[in-house]
């Protein structure tokens, strides 16, 4: 939704200004939250202050040990594996499907149909089939995030300039050349849009898996803390999850910049 800012020297100041503005309004939000909780004497069992959430993250508590390192690495592992399978699997399958119009005509309606279903509802069935643990959470996350990614990639592979395809056909380009020189570069914007959507869905899938059945991970920390009405670790866990999400978002953006330098170049010329 935000327009990509460019790197022209004249705009750099305004970009910095905008970033500052964002930081200030977020800090303001946290400050209001902190003050409200303190001034209204809201009980910690109901809502904790942001500062105590952060405090719980970095200073070990005498009454409870949350094993942050273990839980964070479990969630991170689930997230990275499921996201990698989603991304690689969806792109691979999309390429296969895009080669045959007939297969596409049969499978696309099915994929669109599945994509409109509440896939998360399958989680309890997976728990019976596979049992509890990391594997189940990975599969839940994969199922939740796979179809949006697949549909985006197929759309991208299909959305090619017809004249360009005619031209290279005329020049006897083979299937691989068309794929690597035209289809995949052309599909990049769609692929990255898909990656951004499915990375958030992946996190959601992992967390839902951890919430409903798990004995490790950030989602487990939340459920566990809820049962003792201990809000600071819940918010601390939430902060860590958001960090994971932001980290992945930044990584995808960086990759986008590396793999599609032309799209950023175009912005600069436009401005």
């Amino acid at each position, binding site marked *: 939704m935000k327009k990509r800012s460019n790197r022209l020297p004249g705009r750099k100041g305004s970009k910095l200004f905008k970033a500052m503005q964002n930081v200030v309004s977020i800090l303001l939000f946290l400050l209001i939250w902190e003050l409200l909780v303190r001034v209204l004497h809201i009980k910690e069992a109901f809502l904790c202050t942001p500062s105590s959430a952060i405090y719980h993250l970095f200073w070990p508590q005498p009454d409870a040990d949350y094993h942050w390192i273990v839980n964070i690495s479990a969630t991170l592992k689930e997230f990275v594996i499921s996201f990698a399978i989603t991304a690689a699997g969806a792109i691979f399958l999309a390429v296969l499907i895009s080669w045959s119009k007939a297969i596409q005509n049969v499978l696309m309606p099915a994929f669109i149909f599945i994509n409109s*279903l*509440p896939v998360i509802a399958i989680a*309890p069935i997976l728990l*019976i089939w596979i049992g509890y643990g990391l594997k189940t959470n990975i599969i839940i996350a994969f199922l939740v995030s796979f179809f949006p990614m697949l549909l985006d990639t197929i759309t991208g592979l299909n959305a090619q300039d017809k004249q360009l395809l005619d031209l290279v056909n005329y020049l006897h380009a083979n299937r691989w050349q068309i794929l690597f020189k035209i289809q995949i570069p052309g599909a990049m914007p769609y692929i990255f849009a898909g990656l951004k959507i499915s990375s958030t869905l992946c996190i959601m899938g992992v967390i*839902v898996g951890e*919430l409903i059945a798990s004995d490790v991970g950030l989602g487990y920390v939340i459920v566990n803390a809820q049962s003792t009405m201990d*809000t600071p670790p819940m918010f601390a866990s*939430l902060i860590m999850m958001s960090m994971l999400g932001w980290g992945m978002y930044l990584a995808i953006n960086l990759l986008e910049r590396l793999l599609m330098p032309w799209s950023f170049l175009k912005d600069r010329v436009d401005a």
Partner: protein
Amino acid sequence: MKRKFLRLAKKYGIKLLGITAFLGIWQAVVVGFKIKKYVLPSPVQVLRSLFDPTLAAKNQWWTQIAVTGGEILASFTVTLVLGVALALLIAWSKPLNKLLMPVIVVLNSIPKIALAPLFLLWFGYGIQSKIFVAVLIAFFPVLLNTVTGLIDVDENLLDLVHYLNASKWQTFTKIRIPNALPHLFAGVKISATMCVVGSIVGEFIASKKGLGRLLRSAQANIDMATMFACLVLLSIMGLLLFWLISKAEKLCMPWMNREAEEE
């Protein structure tokens, strides 16, 4: 009349055939390989758990459907009203936009589903907590899409009406809101799925009634047929909501139909 029927038959016939074939193969595989009921139920067993009087009475399908459907509809309505109202406010006032948007963008990037246990703590195990969870995760797509639609308007058009002394109200009703409708509906479609997901996950974590709750209790009993029946009902509810939205879309944006027909 006959032509219309033929067109409909052609449009839905293939899909219907595909679904029937899929169910047929499923049934044949389950029967043929003697797959146990607790591993994978056959479609017939799923149907029986839905319609067989004794089984249906045990599962109280109508109560579950009413609870979950109520949650989905309530959360969807709240999402729509709140999302559009806030989007209008943000698009109307620049200071509000500057103040709220960064916070909204940050809140949106939080995996909101993780707040579900907290909401259960705050609002209890009843229907309200599920509605709040569903609204929380469904709210942002509507809000952000509508804001984009309201603000991302053709500059030339704005200059023109400004020159013609259009009031702010007129710019909103004649230009910004029609411009926002396609974005709004795109957001609403995402939100519809999110409302269903939020209600289900809320019920998974803690609830007394509803299809999500039934899924969990059937899981404890390894009653696969009931679980698949829940899945079918949830899918139907999701698809119904989707269908309603696309009908509303056609009503609200008649010009889109015209474009589609011209093609």
